[in-house]
Every structure is written in C-alpha cells, then in structure tokens.
C-alpha cells in the first residue's frame, strides 16, 4: 500500500453554473477528501482555474485528473507536487486589542511579516500571507492572546512549468454551419 501524497490539482474550465458540482462530484464519488479549493478566473477571459489540494495516492489522482478532463466544459486538468508550484495562502486573525496594547503582539508581527489590517476598540485583525507552515507558525504564537477568530484561504498556486491553457483548446473546431 503506497502512502498518500500532498498533491495540488489545477483544473481549467469554461464558466458555467454547476461546473463546481461536476468537479467535486468526481472527488466525492471516489471518497477523496478535498483539503482546500480556490476558484478564480485565469489569464484567459472566461476560463476559470480551480486549485484543489488533496492528500491521496498518486495513482488515484492520476486517474481522477483524466476523469475531470472528460467533463465537456473542462479544458485541461493537471496535478503537481509541492515543489512544482509557487503557492500562497492568506490568513486573518482576530485578537483582543489588549494584546496589542500590552505590547505582546508587535514583536511577533514583525518576526512573521504579518500586518495589522484594522484596529477597533475591542480587537485587531492581523493578516498573514505565505505558505501554510508560516501561517501555522504565527497561529501558534498568537494562540495565547487568545485568537478570537481565524480564517484562512485555500491555496492559490501557479505551476513552474510553462502552461498555456489556450494550447489545450480544440483547434479543429469548424465554424458553425447553418443547416436547412
């Protein structure tokens, strides 16, 4: 039994209501848990990029990616190891204003390259952008403040190898013909 690996799947699809469901159904049918999922339009207008993190055996992800590509609106899907990607996540922490006032937070924020987004009467909101491990390191430091609220994005990632999604379009599509 081979071990699960941390893999990141990138799916490029046309924009249409329901595609997200089609994509996630391919995962749930095979009982593959999605760790994070981020969607945004990519550099090609009308094409959406789904970045999906999983921990799974590579062989089942290789097959899953082919099943994703079978969806007629999916242009292409890839999977990558961590070292093949440049990736970032963003996390927001709400901590009590007293922690800032007491001077406990300043050093931590400097050391972690985090910044204060807002200061209110009762609380402050801190932002940290980086790898997940960097966010988790900050989390541990702020835990004693304590953290009143915490939210983090999924991973956004760009692959290091050059990929032009336009090169995967069906180039042999003829012009529409009017039929009688």
């Amino acid at each position, binding site marked *: 039994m081979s071990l699960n690996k941390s893999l990141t799947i990138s799916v490029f*699809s*046309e924009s249409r209501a*329901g595609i997200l*469901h*089609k994509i996630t*159904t391919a995962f749930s*049918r095979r009982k593959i848990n999605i760790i994070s999922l981020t969607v945004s339009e990519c550099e090609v207008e009308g094409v959406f990029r789904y970045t999906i993190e999983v921990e799974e055996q590579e062989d089942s992800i*290789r*097959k899953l990616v*082919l*099943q994703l*590509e*079978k969806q*007629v*609106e*999916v*242009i292409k899907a890839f999977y990558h190891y961590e070292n093949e990607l440049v990736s970032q996540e963003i996390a927001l922490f709400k901590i009590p204003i007293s922690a800032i006032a007491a001077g406990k937070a300043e050093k931590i924020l400097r050391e972690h390259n985090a910044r204060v987004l807002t200061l209110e009467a009762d609380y402050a909101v801190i932002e940290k952008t980086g790898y997940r491990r960097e966010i988790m390191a900050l989390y541990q430091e702020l835990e004693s403040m304590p953290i009143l609220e915490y939210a983090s994005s999924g991973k956004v990632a760009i692959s290091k190898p050059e990929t032009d999604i336009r090169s995967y*379009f*069906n180039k*042999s*599509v*003829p*012009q*529409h*013909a*009017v*039929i*009688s």
Partner: protein
Amino acid sequence: MGQLIQEEQSQLIDTGIKMSGARAVLEILLREEVEYIFGYPGGAIMPIYDELMDYQDRLKHILTRHEQGATHAAQGYARTSGKVGVCFATSGPGATNLITGIADAQIDSTPLVCITGQVSAHLLGTDAFQETNIIGISMPVTKWNYQVTSADEIPEVLAKAFYIAQSGRPGPVLIDITKNAQFDTCNFQYKKCLGFRSYIPVPSINDLQVKQAAEAINRSKKPLLLLGQGVLLANAESELKHLIEKADIPTAWTILGLSGLESDHPLNMGMLGMHGNYGPNLLTNECDLLIAVGMRFDDRVTGNLDHYAKQAEVVHIEIDPAEINKNVHADYPVLGDAKAVLEKLIPLVDQNDHNDWKERFKRCRQEEQKKVIEKAMNPTSDQLSMGEVMKWINQYSGGEAIVVTDVGQHQMVACRYAQFRQSKSSITSGGLGTMGFCLPAAIGAKLGSPDQEVVAIIGDGGVQMTIQELGTIMQCEIPIKVVILNNEFLGMVRQWQELFFDKRYSATEMMNPDFVKLAQAYNIQSERVLERDTLDAAVHRLMSSKESYVLEVMVAKENNVFPMVPTGASVSDIILEKPNNYESK
C-alpha cells in the same frame, strides 16, 4: 402544393422566424433527423406536447407506460439504429424516473438526448409542485446536462446536446427546459453544432503509437484480441475482421461487443467474462499479447486484476483517454476512433498464422462443449433448460434476429448461445445491469431496425419490473417476440446463494402471475410451454408470427449458469461445473 408551402415555411424559419420555444424544440428534432420520441407527458412539458400535435406526421411519439421505459426504448433504438435516442418527460417524478435509463446509457456509452420539462424559472428553488433539481440529480450520470430558462437559448443548447451525445464516446445528455422558456417566443435560427473549444471528442491518432502496436502484433506468437462495443460504435466491424484475418488473431468479444463479428467466424472464440467462454478466459492468462479494441477492462471481464494477463503485453485501442491504464496497464496505448486506428494499423500488420495457438482455443471449446454446452443445449433431465430454448430460437432466427436481453441467468445464457450474423444485433444492459431493461429496449430496437425480427429474452423477475410496456407494444402495434424464461426464482442471485451463501435462498423465490393471461389482457398472443415435446413447435409459432407474441417457458428452477469465474478469482480459475465440495465464501 402543400409541399411547396411547407418548403417556403422552412426557409422562413431558417432565416430567423419568431416561434415559441416549444415549437423550436420540435423544429430542431426535425433538423437532427429524429424519427421517434419516447416519452410521457405531464404538466411542465405540456407546451411541447401541445406543439407535437402539429408534428405527428413527421415526429412519431411512442407513449411508454413509465419514463424508465422511455429511456430504455430510446437506448434500444440508439443501439440498433446508430442514431441518437430521444426522450421527453415532465418535471419532478417524470424526470427522476429517467435516471435509471440515463445511468445505464452513461455506463454503456449510448447516445441519448432527454428533454425534461421544468417549472417556470421564477419558481425554481421554491419547492414548487413537481419541482426537482434534475440537473443536480443527473449530473453524475450524464455526459452533459443543461437547464434552459429562456426560449432564446433553446437552439444553441439543443444543437450542443445532439453534438455531445453522439460525438466521441457517446453518452446521454439531459436538457431541462422551464415552462416559461417553452411558452416564450424566440427568434429561431438553427445552426448545427460542429464543436467547441473545451471538448476534444476524438483524440488525433499518434502514428508512432500505431507503429508500436503493429510491431507488438507482428512479434506476437499468441495474440488474443478483445472486441468491445467501441468497434460497433465506430462502425469498424469490417476493419476489425480484416485485421484479425490478416494477422490470424483469435478474437473474443465483451458482452457489449456481441455481434460485432459473425458468431460462426472461425476466429470468434466467444465471450469474455464471468460467464463467458472457457477458452478466452483461460487463455487470457497464456497469451503473449492482448489487443483490446474499444473496451474498458470491466471487472466482470478481468476477474482479479492481480492475476489478469500478467504474462502478456497489452495493446489498448481506445477513444477515451481516461480508460487508458485505468484498470489494466497498456504497454502500447493507441488513442483514437477504432475505425480510424484500425485503418492505419492493418497495412502495418504482417500476414500471419497462429495455428498452434488457435488449436488451444479449439481444445478448450471441445472441453466446454462436452462439460457445459451439450448439457445446456440438450439436457438429459426432464426439466427444460434456458439453453435449449436458445437452440430453437437460433434455429428459426438463422442468426438474423436482434436479441434483446434483460439481466440475470437468462441474459448470460442468451448471450452465450445466441447466434449473430449482423452487427448491432445484441442489445443488453452490460455495465449497469438494469433489470427491466429488456422489454422497453426491445420496442426501441425494433423501431431502430424494423427489418429485423426482435426477440426479447427476459426472466420472470426482470419482466415484472417493466411489464407495463406490454401496453406500449399493444398501442403502437410494434411486433416483438417476447420469451419469458420462468424459473420462479431470481435465478442469478439464487445461484450465488447456492454457491456462496450456503443455499440460504433469502428473498429470491417468486410467486408469479399467469403471464399468458396477462399478455392476453393486452391483446397479445401468448402461450406457455411446460414440456420438451411442445417447445420446438411453440418457438416456431413465436418466430413466424407477424404480430407480437409472448412465449412463457417453464424452465428448471435451480439450474446454474456455467462456466463461471467466481468473484475475486482469476480468469484462469474459471470453473466449468459445480465442484463436488465447493467452499462457500
């Protein structure tokens, strides 16, 4: 004169004429050369059904007795005609009743366009009467689906639906049309879809892959070709025959590949799989090369994958990239349409003969003949066997009939013994194994190939799942020869209970109605056979009848289908008969 007016009208239509969405749907069906619609009306699809009144001369509607029947009939039609099967159903329960047939079509790659009515757009998501999220429900079992909420979308969406259903690896498409979109006016102009950027239905052929596959075939001393439905879907039957005759390759078919080659072709070694023939199963683990054409290595074909053809190299010719290396590693994958690939492959393949290797199949066939086939076809017991019924059907069909089967023991027996001389003549539910498939599928099969006789072979269990379709046969006067092989059991489950569950016959014995009387209630001729003496003449009456006919044959209650690859076993551990002290698992 009438025709002239019609031509003028259709020209007007194509330059953009205002019409209701409902009428646009029917105009599109005409342009997609649809002959038959299988369906069932209801509230949310009434505008389309209303328009249908004016199209009855050009679009024939078959009113099935249940929406599931409509999908299976459309499947039968699609499989014998090679065209798209079209279904209509209303929203809510009408739509959900389509799901079994759609799932069946998805796993067996059958092109369908199912059009469902939906509540008006402003009621979506309000739990309105007969509202259901059929897009969400059908998404995992359709090749594509789409909800239309305005009339203007109808031409483009339906053009895409027909294109997607039949291009590449075919499959079912569901289009849900809200009631307001059916009523509203659109500016109708129809353009047939010829492709779009995110979808590559047929991968282009890599010549190097073809060359490497040819070299592997030329090197092989013991090749075995596996003929799947991809050959039939690509209309590649003659290319396949050319290849196997040139290179002298023994060939076995999957259950959906049945009839892709004449049954009595000297290189046809029979059926793969759990109840397939002895030779192709046993020798899968002796061949040096497997050449899979348009098949997907289903678990019923491979048995235990850890012991499947490990000694052999594998050539896999396949249109769907997701099938390559899914279950069995392909040493020489060739992506593409089977016909196009075979056309390129044949000139690169050497003339060859594999007489010693073919002799192995022949000896296996002799052993199977003695231990299994003879017993099945000419039983010594007083009780009738399913096999001997097939013997007489073959006798009177001459292999020219379409054989439609349901799911279970009778299916395995019919698929093992039915003789085929024409392609696309075996219609069965392979991947999903849908009981109730046969009777409605037979209706569609007959409409798709009206010059062939259609014999529907059904068990007493399966026939009762869709028996109401006798009403469709009656009303539409579609001549079907129905053979009910009645063993008063859910026979395949009972066989497993006998072999693997200590003969604990949990919920498998059936008390049945009088099928003869039931058929008569539908005004369909029928008779029952209890004894061997009367079987031949009864099958003759069935086969020579010009009208529909129901023949019920009381067969042995507790016969088993052999050979059998027990679940979890290797294909080469196929058993020809029940071992004396078979260990239950």
